[in-house]
């Protein structure tokens, strides 16, 4: 099936004008499947890490949100062990006006501002709430351990 023009355009723009700290490259054999690398934002526990994600545009895209998952292990209250992300725009707040770029920027922002009040990984969230410094420390350790490819 022919790729919708929107996906082609988005891809072109992502390649031509990549957002700072974000890299998304489609697979040659499946242009709906992107290898994504997000750099950990400065002043965040994830600074210095390059996080791999996978992004898949489903058939209904853009009516349905893209499916995004961290491949790199990350210690974050809104991201679980399997890399699933708790982000509203990836679920009910999705709008076809959003794009791959905006989604990835949102994820990047999420790294800057974890939200333990709306957790996905309960233990991490608990840790974050009880002892934020310790949690951040763990996050840094994980970043160093897993995100330095």
């Amino acid at each position, binding site marked *: 099936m022919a790729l*919708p*023009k*929107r996906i082609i*355009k*988005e891809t072109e723009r992502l390649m031509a004008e990549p957002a700072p700290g974000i890299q998304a490259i489609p697979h040659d054999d499946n242009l709906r499947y992107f290898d994504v690398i997000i750099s950990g934002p400065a002043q965040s526990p994830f600074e210095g890490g390059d996080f791999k994600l996978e992004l898949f545009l489903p058939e*209904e895209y*853009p*009516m*349905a949100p893209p499916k995004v998952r961290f491949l790199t292990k990350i210690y974050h209250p809104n991201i679980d062990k399997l890399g699933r992300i708790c982000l509203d725009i990836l679920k*009910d707040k999705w*709008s*076809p*006006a959003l794009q791959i770029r905006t989604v990835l920027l949102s994820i990047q922002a999420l790294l800057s501002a974890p939200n333990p009040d709306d957790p996905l990984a309960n233990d991490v969230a608990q840790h974050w709430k009880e002892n934020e410094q310790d949690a951040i420390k763990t996050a840094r350790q994980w970043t160093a351990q897993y995100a330095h490819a």
Partner: protein
Amino acid sequence: MPTQTVQATRAGVATTDALADLSAILAGTQLSSAALSALLAAANGDVETAVNLYFENPAAYSSPAIPLTDAAAPSPLLSSLSSHSMTAARPSFSATTDNANGKRKAADTVLPPLATAKRLKSQSSSGSGPSWHYVGDIVIVALSMVRGGGYAKDGDEIDTVQQSTNAAAISKQKPKGGRVGAKAAKAGPITRFSVRGKEIAKMNRDDAKILGKLVELGVIAIKGTVVSVPPSLTMLGDIILQLRIYLTPAAFMTISSSQDEETQDQTIKDRKLALLHMFQLLGLRPLDPALVAGLKDDPPVADVSPSAPAKAAGMDDEPEQAELEDDQVEILYEKARGFEDVPEAEPRAGLTVEMRGYQKQALAWMSAKENQTSDPNAHSIHPLWEEYAFPGCEPENAGHFYLNPYTGELTLNFPSAADQTRGGILADEMGLGKTLETLSLIHSNRPTAEDMARPSPRSALSGLRGMSNTSTVSGTTVPALPQTRATLIVCPVSLLAQWRDEITARFRPGTLTCAVYYSADRALSVADLTGKKGPDVVITTYGTVSSEWGGGTGEGGPGKRASLVFALDWFRVVLDEAHYIKNKGTANAKSCFTIQAKRRWAVTGTPIQNRLEDLFSLVHFLRIEPWGNYSFWRQFISVPFAAKDHKALNVVQSILEPLVLRRQKSTPSGPEGRPIVELPPKIVDKVLLDFTSEERDIYDALHTRSKTQFSNFVAAGSVLSNWAHVFQMLTRLRQCCLHPQLALGKGSTKTDATIGGSDVDALIRRFQDGVDGGGGSPAGASTGSGAGGESPYIESVFQKLNGTGDYGADGSSAPANGEEDQSCALCFDVMATPTIFPCLHISCRDCIVAYLQKREDMGEPAQCPICSKPFPRGTDDLYDIIRAPQPPPQTAPPLHGADAADIDSATQQQQQQQPRRPAFSVRRHFHPSTKLTALIAELTHLRTTAPDVKTVVFSQFTTMLTLCETILQEHGFGYARLDGTLSQREREAVLKRFASDSVDEASSSKKTDTSKSSKCTVLLASMRAAGVGLNLTRASVVICLDTWWNLPTEMQAIDRVHRLGQTRAVHVKRFIMRDSVEERMLDIQERKTVLCRWAIRDGEVTGEGGKAQGKEEEKRRRVEELKTLFG
């Protein structure tokens, strides 16, 4: 032998006595008076011998030279005479002696000689007023009411006493008298006779019906003499009386109109019958019997006899108004056709066009109809009246009087045939130029001084009431109306302008002046029209006429004097589309009947639509005698026709023959026998279209539902009782073929616009604010109106939409914001159908609809995908952005119909004043249907290949026309719209606009309206509004978006284009959806079955059983047709 005595007294001369005696005895032998004289002479004056002589050799005395044309019924007088006195009575006495010979000589011979009359007259002159008119004697046998002798002797003068006065005096007779008196109300009055104040006798019932009735009505007065009275009277014994009959002055007056119509009708009838019968008794013969075309064998006298009560009673029943078969209608016109031998007449100078040959023939014919009897010296009697000589020779009796045997009217004034209104029915087929023919008549046949010297005959009939030409009876009592030289033209509102324009266009300025008298334009006064400078033609409408006519009070009422139409005696009145008065009971008809004019014309292409009664109204309007009299019409046409007597059609034929000019386009003329009008060809194509799959789904769903419902009705046998419902289902299916939106009920943008009107207006305003501001600050101007922080976005929207005005397929010329702003926010593609949301975000229509659909599927409310602002009405909150069309540069924005409901009209009209034209407008979402797409394809094709061709688009549904408007605007077509909602002015404007830029026609008419310069190439017309009279020949392409139940209606609409004046071949395209109710309608049309004919034709069935059977048959067929339609 009493009879002998009677006759002797009556005649007074011995030989006459014997002759009369003999004729009485030999009544029925058809002997002329000459033969009787011969017989008597042969018998030396002895009656008995003469009788014997006759019966020995009847042939010798028969006189075959005098034809017997009449077989009148036995007269009651003679019956009564013979029944008691002559066993060998020959009841047809009168037939033998009087009626056998229609010439006055016969009357002279048999009637009492003048000398006798003179004697009688002088005897009674003291008792009769100077204005009483002696008309003759009657000998009757009265019944004695007393017993014994001495009451009277032969030769006593007797007086008549109306029954009621002295009834009490005869105590013994009281019960009987009471009984008869009770009957009198119905059977007629009882008249008694008195001698020296003592009542001694009464009339027998038959005489009372005639003479008594007339006395009661005040028509006659009776004086009398006792001829023979037995010495001793027995109760109910015979007394022979001789009565002298006088017509009173009242006899010559109009019958009182104070009674209600029904009573009056009955009175008129009674009076007529009694009068005619009395004349028969008196032996009065007309000098020249009334001649009525087609009725010579059937004189109305035949109905007069009381012995034919059944027939008379039959007249009272309103005849079934049987419908005519189509072929019957054509037969009716048969004799009215074929005018090859009519010469052509050159119209008076002043026309700017050359009339065609057949039009000149019409002019010649019409002029002849108007001028035929204009010779004032022609002393020919009105065909309906009969002239009688008064018997007697006193000065006051010298001369004649006149009887109308059909109405029983009497008059002393000569009813001249010249009094007949002149005119007729111009019934040329549509498109032959009836208007021009009529105008050329008005122009060429102007009133002469002589015409103006005499007022037109007034009709005293209010509405339909019987008496025709009563002016001759009572004319002196009604003041004459002021006369005008003008012709009054009455036409439907829709044709008002056409008449006026035709005058302007076809005549050189000043040659034929006209004025319109309608609604606010009613500025004309009586003085305007009676003066020298009055217009030649006054055009008005049926509505105006009937409103001036008002409540229909009798003529001359004070209210009517205020009007113009009825305050004048017009030179000529012309009813255009005269079938508007076909129903004689309507105000339209009644009011037109009342118009006074010297010449009367009915102009219509269809003088008979489907009932013979249709014609009656026209004939009545034209005051054609005798047919304009309804009872007459009913008796000789309606009743026989209802009784399947097709002689009625022959009668109608003979009425029409001199009255109607009817040619058809195909009527051959000239030596080559070519049709009189050769129109360019008309090519009708059936264009079968296929539903889109989406439409098909909707149609099928609707169809399935309707069919199920229909099947239920069929199963329950209640199809016809649910007709309204069935019809509605069919209508929805038909609408669905046009555009599913129509069938789904949320069809018209009109209603939608009112629901969300304010929002839409606000939206438009915001757009306009932006546009007006221009440059860099448009958003600032609009921030206050609710879009909040999105103003930069709005700005970009404006730039995108307005700045370049071009986001065409190449999508190249984005000025500042890059390609992104040229595209849909959702699909990133160039927007195919740009749609704007209430929050002013935009996207493709498909994208946003898909998104909203998705949200709906997930149970979430509609909202903007960009700013999440909710859409309370879902997809109804989306508006299409329409780029202004880019057609020929001089083309202004499309003009809107009078009811333009589309929301962008305000935008465009306002923006029209802006130096910079807007590149876009906004309207409610609109999705074209297959038919609309096909329409646009067709029109677009025409625009490129034949830019000068104009198109008429017909639909039954005005909602469809509204959709057409939307799509025509979108594609930049100049159009106009014609439907039933338009006022007359608007209609005129529309038609003028559509016809404008036409080189030949509208150019000559002064057209100051230059405000709309756009070229209007399409006329959207509702089939009904455009059905009558319109001339749409500027168009040469017709597109029928839908089909009607019967083809003729559709073809009639098409013929508005394909008519006289059309110079191009006319292409007709009928859009039909394949495999739909439309296709099945066509099938039925092609089987020549007319659907929806709910009026059952009573004429087709006879008797009750037959009728019921016919109805069943009709029902069954109807259900079958419906089954076909539902497929």
